[in-house]
């Protein structure tokens, strides 16, 4: 090989290295753009909602009933409905989901039986939410005769977020080292004492994270609630859960008609009159702020737990 050809080769190699380094830079730029497409579009969406709905975001909006005139219409029945439905959802999904997670992690024998349950849970997480609406329409509304009530809506959303609660319960239980359980057994604790006093206590934060994310999902879920027939024009509040005569609790609200925030928004945005679209935007901004706050808190909690726990 002559000296000239070596130098020529060297120059080729240098050119190649330069080209490849260029590729790196080009891809970095494309990558940043791709990431920005995802993030900035969503920022645009949020700003668009605030901008469109800014005229209506005030306390009056929260304390008015829906109305035929857009400027007088408000969210009172919707946010009260959402709150009551979420209470039922919480009361069904949390005990059932945590109990199921405990069973699968701590009790279930490793056999076909627990395999079936596991496959079921992971499949349920992938079922489209509207199918839960169909289940509830056939089962709760007509099968059990619960009608188009707050109870039906709460139970439906409870089933919907059950897989989320189960999965997060299992994940946080799995992170607890066996040594903790062994120590408790060694001083004579029964299985339930170990599970209740130790496993459940230490996985509390992780379970809470899953519950909050699930509840945020339930709050924004629209399709199943439409399927089970939420009414879109509700100018009354359900009977109060607390009464002033003994026994001070009143369960009539469970069977009351209702509307929820995302349904109200859907109703307003599907009207032809533009004035109602402003209401829809304002409602959307409120829903998005609440769900983002809930999810943000849950994610922060998760990161904090991940950092603070060192077994």
């Amino acid at each position, binding site marked *: 090989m002559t000296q000239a050809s070596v130098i020529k080769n060297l120059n080729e190699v240098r050119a190649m290295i330069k080209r490849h380094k260029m590729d790196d830079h080009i*891809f970095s730029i494309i990558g940043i753009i791709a990431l920005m497409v995802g993030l900035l579009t969503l920022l645009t969406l949020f700003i668009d909602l605030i901008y469109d709905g800014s005229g209506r975001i005030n306390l009056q909006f929260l304390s008015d009933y829906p109305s035929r005139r857009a400027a007088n219409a408000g969210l009172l029945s919707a946010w009260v409905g959402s709150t009551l439905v979420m209470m039922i959802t919480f009361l069904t999904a949390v005990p059932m989901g945590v109990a199921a997670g405990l069973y699968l992690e701590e009790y279930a024998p490793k056999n076909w039986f627990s395999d079936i349950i596991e496959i079921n849970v992971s499949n349920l997480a992938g079922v489209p939410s509207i199918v839960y609406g169909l289940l509830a329409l056939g089962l709760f509304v007509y099968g059990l005769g619960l009608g188009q009530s707050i109870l039906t809506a709460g139970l439906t959303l409870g089933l919907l977020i059950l897989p989320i609660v189960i999965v997060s319960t299992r994940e946080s239980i799995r992170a607890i080292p066996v040594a903790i359980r062994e120590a408790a057994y060694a001083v004579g604790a029964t299985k339930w004492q170990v599970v209740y006093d130790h496993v459940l206590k230490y996985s509390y934060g992780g379970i809470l994270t899953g519950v909050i994310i699930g509840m945020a999902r339930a709050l924004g879920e629209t399709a199943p609630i439409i399927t089970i027939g939420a009414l879109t024009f509700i100018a009354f509040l359900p009977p109060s859960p607390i009464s002033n005569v003994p026994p001070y609790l009143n369960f009539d609200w469970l069977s009351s008609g209702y509307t929820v925030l995302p349904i109200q928004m859907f109703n307003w945005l599907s009207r032809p009159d533009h004035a109602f679209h402003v209401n829809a935007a304002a409602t959307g901004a409120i829903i998005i702020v609440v769900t983002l706050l809930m999810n943000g808190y849950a994610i922060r909690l998760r990161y904090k737990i991940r950092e603070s726990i060192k077994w």
Partner: protein
Amino acid sequence: MATTTMNEFAATTISPRLAKNIRRNIKERVIEFILMLAALSAVATTVGIVAILLNESLGFFKTVSVVDFFTDTQWTPLFENPHFGIMPLISGTLTTSAVALMVAIPVGTIAAIYLSEFASHKVRETVKPILELLVGVPTVVFGYFALFFVTPILQNMIPTLPGFNMLSAGLVMGIMIIPYICSVAEDAMRAVPMSMREGSYAMGATRFQTALRVVAPAATSGIVAAYILGISRAVGETMVVAVAAGQQPNLTFNPMESAATITAYIVQVALGDLPHGSIGYQSIFAAGLVLMVMTLIFNMLGHWVRKKYRENY
């Protein structure tokens, strides 16, 4: 004398202990049983979904033949002269999903590669939680965005575009799925061990070459699973298409047209007040069954890919 004291001793002290043990054991068993019932609720939900969809669909298929259901090109169950061909709804569902995936898969994958292989630790730790946050944005809000923000912009570019169209709904659905695909694919690439990257760098490969030829192939199972889960989400998505794609069943694969999807049809019928047991009422369950089968196929494919092509390091 000594034996009687022993007996008395046994009678007074051991038996309460035994009794306590028995009580404890019963309590343990009862608790385990209750927990098992809770776990079985997951199975019950699946059984309930399948039973209700099949039961109502069976009533539907007594009136409508299965052949008509899959070959008729019109879906007009609520008309005077009803047609029950599911194909227009399937075409609408597939078209909106295809548009969504054409956005979400390339953008999501590139963003995931960038996050996993190029971005600094600090950028990744900031962006990851934001992505998780965005997965939780309610879909009805995206419907508003599609109808009142994206559609007007598209109409400026394509003047013939109708107010309800599958293009706008699909694009917004795609944007909605980006964080999901990006987050799952990034997790898959992060799981590829560092030593493989180091081996590649040691051979003189650049970051880009390493990402494309070493990390991405090693994480294929996870990345493909992310795509399939994205597809199943797009197919089952309801509010965006119900708001922005239109309500008219239309046998077309042209995204510039307006068409109803399976989910949009269910919403449309549920908003009206159909009598329980009527053919219109049963038709939403038949449509739901088709939707369920479609998503189930994708979900199972996802699990299968993950299992089959999983590389263990």
